[in-house]
């Protein structure tokens, strides 16, 4: 187990990483060519109006001063107002985050459940026909671009067969009293299927291959041979002895994958018009909406860093042999 001291150390590292991310974000957007207010100010504005706006957003101050104001605001959880929407960035990001999280988790849970079972099974059937057919398929799905896969699923299951709607999280004009009412409706599920399937197909390769190779390692070990000698059934040997031990690295890779998947959603959210954080990020960058882009990037960075921390903690929890001391 981790001691308090180790956890403290990890937290300090985490804060350092977030500070570095925040600083890089600040610099990237200020060093981009062009007037930061080009997207905000209508060129018909008079010069005085433009100067007032520059002053309002603090863009007339020196860069270092802007930087300290920015850090101070971040410490207070203040992400500023979006240029594009003229509304607080924090509210906007928080409104879209649940949609992204539900898409991410549902697709990853499917991908990992499938990957773990299929990986274990393939390890068990090593050298057989199943392996020769399955492994190339898995490698192919891993190499498919997500947008292409998404368009393909849309063309087949939405436009040709008409089984699933093509975009959004709800049918036109459907009203839900709460987020929970929306997420628990069949309407929402029907909208979730295609984007989640796209992400799941793309993500299942990693847990599958990881599980398979872990299983192969584990099955060569003495305790598995011992279990077989004891005359236990194949099922018991695979599930109770081998799989349990092979699972540990896969579970921790899940936590890391959640973090990375959030960024992967950018493409899928655009293909399926999913109102999530990824699509907002693309809009914010193309509209030069610095406060919003910074806020969205920062939120994603926080999720990634937290998930990494969680992976570390899980590791030591699940496998007491691993110590951070």
């Amino acid at each position, binding site marked *: 187990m981790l001691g308090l001291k180790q956890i403290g150390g990890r937290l300090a590292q985490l804060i350092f990483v977030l500070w570095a991310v925040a600083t890089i974000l600040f610099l990237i957007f200020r060093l*981009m*060519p*062009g*007037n*930061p207010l*080009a*997207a905000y100010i*209508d*060129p*018909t*504005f*008079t*010069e005085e*109006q433009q100067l007032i706006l520059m002053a*309002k957003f603090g863009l007339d101050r020196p860069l270092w001063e802007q930087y300290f104001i920015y850090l101070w605001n971040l410490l207070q959880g203040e992400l500023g*107002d979006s240029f*594009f*929407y*003229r*509304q607080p960035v924090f509210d*906007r990001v928080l*409104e*879209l985050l649940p949609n992204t999280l539900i898409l991410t988790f549902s697709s990853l849970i499917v991908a990992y459940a499938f990957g773990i079972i299929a990986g274990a099974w393939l390890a068990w059937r090593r050298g057989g026909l199943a392996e020769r057919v399955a492994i190339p398929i898995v490698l192919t799905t891993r190499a498919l671009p997500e947008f292409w896969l998404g*368009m393909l699923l*849309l*063309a087949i299951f*939405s*436009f040709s067969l*008409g089984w699933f*709607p*093509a*975009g*959004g*999280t*709800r049918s*036109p*004009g459907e*009203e839900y009293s709460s987020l929970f009412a929306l997420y628990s409706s069949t309407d929402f599920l029907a909208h979730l299927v295609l984007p989640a399937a796209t992400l799941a197909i793309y993500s299942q390769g990693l847990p599958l291959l990881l599980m398979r190779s872990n299983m192969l390692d584990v099955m060569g070990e003495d305790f598995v041979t011992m279990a077989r000698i004891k005359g236990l059934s194949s099922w018991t040997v695979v599930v109770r002895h081998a799989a349990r031990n092979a699972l540990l690295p896969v579970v921790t890779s899940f936590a890391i994958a959640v973090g990375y998947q959030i960024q992967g959603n950018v493409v899928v*959210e*655009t*293909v*399926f*018009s999913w*109102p999530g954080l990824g*699509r*907002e990020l693309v*809009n914010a960058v193309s509209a*030069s909406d610095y406060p919003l882009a910074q806020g969205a990037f920062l939120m994603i960075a926080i999720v990634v860093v937290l998930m990494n921390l969680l992976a570390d903690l899980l590791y030591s929890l699940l496998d007491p042999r691993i110590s951070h001391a």
Partner: protein
Amino acid sequence: MTRILKTIAAAALATLVAAPALAEGDKIREISILTRPQAAQPSEFQFVNIIAQEWRKLGLDVKIQVMPWEQMADLVWYNRDKWDVTGWQMVGRPERSDPDELIYNLYHSSTAPKGYNFLGYNNPDYDKVVEAQRVETDANKRQTLLKQAQAMLAEDQPALMLVHPKSTFAFDKTVWNASTVVDQGGIGIKNTWTFIEMEPLGDKKDIVLNSADNIQGINPLWISGGTDSWITELIWDRLLRIGPDGLPKPWAAESFEWVDATTIKLKLRDGMKWHDGKPVTAEDVKFSFEAPAGEEAPMYKPFVGNIASIEADGNSVTFKLKKPAAAFTTGSLSKINIIPKHIWEPILTDLGVKDDNAESHQEKMPIGSGPYKFTSWTTNEEVVLAANDGHWARPKADRWILRIVSNTEAALGMLRSGEVNFLSDFSGDPKILLNAAKEDGDLEVVSTIDMGFRYVAFNNRRPPFDSAGFRRALSAAINRDLIVGAAFKGFAVKSNSVISPALPFWHNAEVVDMKTGADLAKSILKESGFELVGGKLHYPDGVKESLAE
């Protein structure tokens, strides 16, 4: 080798001997032409490349500079003496149905330092003509002046006009009665009239339409994104509305009358109600036009700048103007949203003491008096409006549902599968849309010539573009039919005037058919004194290149 050297020497000698008494003009520097990236603006990128190629045939060195919009706007708009040529566009908006905004603002010398005349055209004769049309309230006399102004622009070519694009939209004709869809001149079938008049054929009574852009705000005091204006036009009434013919029609005002050149009197319609049930009064109208005059709605401020005073009396409203303005009915009375005083007065008073203005005030439940009422807005997903049963022009549809669809191909698929029934935003190739409609059989596609236009602006401040002859030649070198076909795939009409043929009363059709061709361009250059030396274009005699790097 020696033979070659001898030939060169002989040629050089011949040039020297033939040289005129006056020093020959310098070689024109490499000129650069700006365009946005192909991914963002495929048509612009394409026509800029064609134009550069044609200009090179005249002996010019042309460099194409590709940059994103933010950078281009910054250079062209804020650094007015630092660029040569740029691709540019003006978009069609209902209030541009009056030619004043384009013909005056784009080329009057007063807007050259900081306003719309970014290319720096300065012609005192032109200034006089466009000033005269501005105060001319007799339509026929004004028409003559406007045609004259267009002819002057055609002669001077301050910019190289290319095309008026066509706006292309589609709808499901098994859901909507095609004969009730209104095609508004210069705007297309996606307009307020269609959303009010369009009649359902069967049980499906919801207009479900799409936009690729997120909604920025639903706010009667903020001119935000283009898609947002579709919504504000439906929730809030205006005194007049631009009709399908491009002329202002009575709306919330049932009639209007010019008392004299600077006084207009309007009579309000009886029985109008806000969506919260309170009556719409003349005081509300007065408030709506006074509110933008302060500092809280900067984007609407220019539209009320000419109002000297407003008088509300019973159900009539009288506007006194500072000076006569022919475009007042179109540019102001059809533009300003009528807002409820009981809601906005406290908000504006509160904002008056803060840094923020009305643009950042998003009402939870926007209240107007328009034909549709606000129902809901889900971030980046949809906006739902419901028909206002109490409105004198109650829409034939029940609901108006705008879906945000970020994927263009999916939008077309949704139209075919019925997830949307009105394609109000399609950025793909219009031919693909036409083919899909042919295959499908249920869809009707309508293309309308736009009020807006695409062009290439010359920086009139910088030599050699300060020479009208040079600009005329460069313009004559470009075959517009080729541009229509190659860069717009036929979905545009060629142009030589800022007033679109979509506004037939004001448009000067005589200027459109200009002669073009490389030979013509070369002869104009020669007449203007420009010379070809060793295949490269030089300034007229005695003129130095002052801007070479």
